[in-house]
């Protein structure tokens, strides 16, 4: 079967890959948005923490025999604790300063993480096998779908929806949103905002680590996987705006699909298509698709 002269297998294969990338964009931009909402900091080390998540899975398997499912729990916990440490020792000193300092600090941390991992593991990647349960695939008629890829999309969607639910539909989320709008007032009502802030950062970066573990079997685990991704995620955030949780999810997935489609139609442009879309959005809707007009 062919569509526009492209075999449906190639087309849907690329679209699925695009959807997978889109899932990562969604999970990462969601984490960035949650952190930015409460801490007013753009977490440049988000990509590095995603990379560390993947390495926790890889090293856990090599040295501790930790299987994939355990890694899916362990990596977010480890990285989340690392995040708590970063927030408690460094970021909390910056809240009264210009936003730019938070960005610069987390950029420095990203450089440190990347350098350390490059020293120990070089720049070439290592591969991580998907778990046995998810090896192989199913024939859907129009395409052959590897099980693991389907799982990545489902798991990411589930995490995104769960985050959306917690923030928009639970009392905890309501407190969080209130603290985003009026931290001082919320504190005056007896809620421990600093703890909330620390926990938010921890959970935000744990999401990045979760994405890192999901990504490990799809791409090569290497020290620069995070920095390559984070720049695209920044463009995604500019396109979507950080005002809306649902907006981050939709924008991330949508842009992943567009990128996948570009790979089929005009492969040369696939690396830049998201940046080009960003330019177009800036021209016609400067505040972003889901952003509040400043």
């Amino acid at each position, binding site marked *: 079967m062919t569509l526009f002269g492209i075999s449906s297998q190639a087309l849907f294969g690329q679209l699925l890959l695009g959807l997978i990338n889109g899932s990562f964009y969604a999970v990462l931009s969601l984490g960035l948005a949650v952190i930015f909402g409460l801490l007013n900091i753009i977490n440049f080390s988000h990509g590095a923490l995603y990379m560390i998540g993947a390495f926790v899975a890889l090293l856990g398997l090599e040295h501790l025999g930790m299987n994939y499912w355990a890694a899916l729990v362990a990596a977010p916990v480890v990285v989340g604790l690392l995040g708590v440490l970063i927030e408690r020792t460094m970021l909390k000193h910056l809240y009264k300063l210009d936003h730019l*300092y938070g960005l610069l600090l987390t*950029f*420095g*941390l990203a450089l440190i993480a990347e350098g350390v991992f490059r020293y120990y593991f070089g720049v070439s990647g290592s591969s991580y096998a998907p778990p046995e349960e998810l090896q192989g695939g199913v024939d859907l008629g129009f395409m052959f779908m590897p099980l693991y890829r389907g799982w990545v999309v489902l798991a990411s969607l589930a995490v995104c929806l769960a985050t959306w639910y917690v923030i928009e539909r639970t009392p905890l989320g309501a407190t969080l949103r209130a603290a985003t709008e009026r931290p001082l007032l919320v504190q005056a009502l007896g809620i421990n905002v600093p703890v909330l802030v620390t926990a938010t950062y921890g959970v935000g970066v744990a999401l990045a680590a979760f994405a890192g573990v999901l990504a490990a079997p799809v791409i090569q685990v290497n020290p620069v996987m995070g920095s390559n991704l984070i*720049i695209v995620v*920044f463009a995604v955030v500019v396109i979507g705006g950080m005002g809306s949780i649902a907006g981050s999810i939709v924008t991330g997935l949508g842009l992943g699909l567009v990128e996948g489609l570009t790979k089929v139609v005009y492969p040369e442009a696939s690396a830049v298509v998201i*940046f080009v879309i960003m330019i177009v959005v800036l021209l016609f809707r400067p*505040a972003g698709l889901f952003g509040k007009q400043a």
Partner: protein
Amino acid sequence: MNLPGTPSAASRRIRTPAQRHMAGWTIAIVLALAAPWVIYPTFLMKVLCFALFACAFNLLLGYAGLLSFGHAAFFGGSAYVCAGLAKYVGLTPELAILAGTAVAAALGGLFGWLSIRRSGIYLTMITLALAQLVFFVALQLPFTGGEDGLQGVPRGRLLGFIDLGDNHAMYYFVLAVFALGFWLIRRTVHSPYGQILKAIRENEPRAISLGYDVNRYKLLAFVLSAALAGTAGALKALVFQLASLTDVHWHMSGEVVLMTLLGGLGTLVGPAAGALVIVALENELADKVGPWVTVIMGSIFVACVLAFRRGLVGELLALRGRTDIDPS
């Protein structure tokens, strides 16, 4: 007891700030002129290129308060243009540099036009994404040599008769361009235009309410900063006879931020001092510690942000008890 005017070392006191100032510049100029006879000229030229790059960057961050994470696009883009024109078209060095600068200025106008639609951290993310776009273009254009870069760029003859192949001649040329660029930045900062930039940095709504077309001022700052960053990149391409992907990579954007931050945001000489320290560190450390250089750079970033936000020059000025961190 000394009589006034006695030229003994102990008694010769420089009284007014203006005199101290003159003395400082005189020493700096003499040192700069003598340096290539003592220190390896290529190293000095690298320092000067990055010093100009950092000073240009600081015009935007230190004075207009706009953090661009895309300055590698101007630096590297101009390096490619200059290198390509010198190598394939045979332009003389001064014309190749001017062409590179013009392209960087145009890029700066484009980046500025797009990014000042948003402010704060969004602006930073936009410039980073745009620079990444330039990186991919540089990777794929036919004349850039892909991963290898443009190698063996001829330095050529300045104005058609001064052979820049000689390292000392090249050094004095680089020094002259740096001095010109630095003077231009200093002029800009002290002009009424520079004052308005600072006003926008301090309180943008107020500047708007005073009737200033804030976006026009920001855009001009972008173009100026990008043009001078481009001059620095073009010079660098001639000095090393190479334009490569390193020049347009986002690491380069990070490095210039680091130099400026380390030297002192919003001080005139700070970024140049920061460039000197970082280039010297890289030179010393690159063969000895390999990938740890990145770790060290990252640590300096963290240390600067947490403990040392005024930077080297800023701290010095603060020690001297000056409230106005603006040495001129």
